[in-house]
């Protein structure tokens, strides 16, 4: 993702942003179809509708910066520079998946791009990001750590503990809450007293709410927070208000019933972050239909080819299941 790095200290390349958002959308849509056809094992939590958050946030970071993520992490992995082919390979349990098939959707790690892990434990990634920030600060490597977590995770004790520690030590970390207004099948408001954005104030941590469906707003806030952190000013909290179009996880319909009003879903679909950016770029003339179609086609092809290559790839030998718990080589790094 050199492109992004080049622009790392400039403004947001909106066409590149659109490309990433489309890539996420197409990737997730492929996951949807695969799951429906029984081709994907395990749990699948789709990011569709929230693409602007991961994209705006990761484009505001450097490749060397780290992120931690959660169970709904495909978008974060892609936005941080992940390779869809290795992601599909992981979701299919193949040998050249990111984790050799040992992790799956909820445990994708892409260390070289600073992706320290999606996570199956809600809130689990928050202290890990704070810890990466402790290392960055100590090593004075100018890296920033950012943690993506949901509104549900904002009720876990480690969130508050991490805010306190980050404030005390002025850690170069950004806490990014994706408030998609539901924790599984329950309204966030039924589980969460007050506003998440207000939870940073007692610790003296700056916090902002942004429209999570506007990639530029997300980019601007995260860029500011990242530079604030990089310059030694410490942590920030950003609450991105957004919405997931799909169920909490694929296949829930059988049990979940209708826990979200149809109108609510429609209203949010009308605020599609991708459609909004597309029409704006068309109006501005930054893009014309042909280029847009081309871009869409390229991403569709990328995802199709990625899936095909993953599908064709071999699985790891079963003996692999028994190895890799401990690093063997002793001693220093």
């Amino acid at each position, binding site marked *: 993702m050199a492109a992004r790095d080049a622009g790392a200290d400039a403004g947001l390349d909106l066409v590149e942003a659109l490309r990433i958002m489309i890539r996420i959308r197409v990737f997730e849509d492929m996951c949807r179809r695969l799951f429906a056809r029984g081709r994907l094992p395990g749990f699948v939590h789709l990011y569709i509708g929230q693409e602007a958050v991961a994209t705006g946030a990761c484009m505001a970071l450097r490749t060397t910066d780290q992120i931690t993520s959660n169970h709904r992490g495909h978008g974060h992995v892609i936005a941080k520079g992940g390779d869809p082919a290795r992601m599909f390979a992981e979701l299919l*349990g193949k040998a050249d998946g990111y984790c050799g*098939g040992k992790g799956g959707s909820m445990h994708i790690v892409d260390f070289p791009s600073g992706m320290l892990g999606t996570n199956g434990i809600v809130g689990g990634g928050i202290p890990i990001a704070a810890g990466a920030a402790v290392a960055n600060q100590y090593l004075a490597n100018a890296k920033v750590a950012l943690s993506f977590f949901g509104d549900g995770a904002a*009720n876990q004790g480690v969130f508050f503990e991490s805010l306190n520690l980050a404030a005390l030590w002025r850690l170069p970390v950004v806490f990014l809450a994706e408030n998609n207004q539901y924790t599984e*099948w329950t309204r966030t408001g039924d*589980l969460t007293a007050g506003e998440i954005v207000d939870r940073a104030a007692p610790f003296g941590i700056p916090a902002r709410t942004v429209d999570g469906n506007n990639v530029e707003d997300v980019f601007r806030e995260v860029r500011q927070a990242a530079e604030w952190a990089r310059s030694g000013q410490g942590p920030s909290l950003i609450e991105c208000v957004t919405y997931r179009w799909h169920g909490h996880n694929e296949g829930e319909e059988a049990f979940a019933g209708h826990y979200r009003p149809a109108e609510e879903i429609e209203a949010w679909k009308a605020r599609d972050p991708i459609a909004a950016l597309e029409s704006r770029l068309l109006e501005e003339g930054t893009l014309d239909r042909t280029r847009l179609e081309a871009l869409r086609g390229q991403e569709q092809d990328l995802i199709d080819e990625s899936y095909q290559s993953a599908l064709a790839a071999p699985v790891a030998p079963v003996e692999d299941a028994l190895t890799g718990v401990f690093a063997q080589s002793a001693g220093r790094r």
Partner: protein
Amino acid sequence: MKDTYLVTAMRDGLAEAMREDPAVVVFGEDADRSVMGSTRGLIDEFGPDRVRNIPLSEATVVGCGVGAAAAGLRPVIDLMVSSFFYMTMDQLANQAAKLRYMSGGQVRLPIVYFAATGGAGSAAAQHSESPHPTFIQQAGLKVVMPSTPADAKGLMLASVRDPNPVVYLQEASLGGTRGPVPNGPFEVPLGRATIRRDGSDVTVVAVGRTVRVALAVAEELDGDGVSVEVIDPRSLYPWDADTVLESVARTGRLVVLDTARQSCGFAAEVIARVCTEAFSSLRSPPARVTTPDVPMPFAPHLERHLAVDGHKAKAAVLRCLQ
């Protein structure tokens, strides 16, 4: 008698408990709609005051169970997946398991903590734990794990009626299995094992989902003239050592199947108990078939490779018979 899914039977046992005692209140994430099905529909009969959705604050909710029980409720707390118990270990191990003893018996803590447990099919390392040995180690928690729908219902009612904290573990992979379940309230007593199949050549103690594995192996070996006795402890703490010791005294051979990882697992405890107390009755080395000492991998073929299956179980039984 009604043919019922295991998870539904568990839910029915909970419903019986709620009917007989208004102090029984259920807390869980999405307890109203119930992701796993174990509380589904309860809200319609008992209302939102007795079936409550909780925020993702597991440690605090488990601690609330202690306070609520001390103050007169019989809380039943759904932790959804057994891996999430780790979030709550302080309140579970330092408070719930110890408060009665530390207080010199002043408080009773009738609490049930339940969750789906074990590999559920590519749920991966953070949703596939079989942590029962860790709860058994606490000594202040009763631990149960049903393997049939009838036991799921009877153990749930017994657990809610028990005046102590009970960790009720429902095998995720058995939730959708069916079986006959008596209507109305009935208890499967805590601490009592059941002999699923009588046999005379070898005793197989099998936990949770491995009971079916053991029964299949027994059936298969029956053809070869080998008579396998299958014991389902059902309660893992306290567990029914007498039934196992009595069986081994007859068969002289012991194989233990456990879903937990091997080191310091329940299989180790059963074998240690039998070897220290009934060594002379053993005619051949005891054996255990457990999940190896690794986190659960995601890929189906890797996960399958680690599972306690008929192939491994049969091999272990035959080794004992040599």
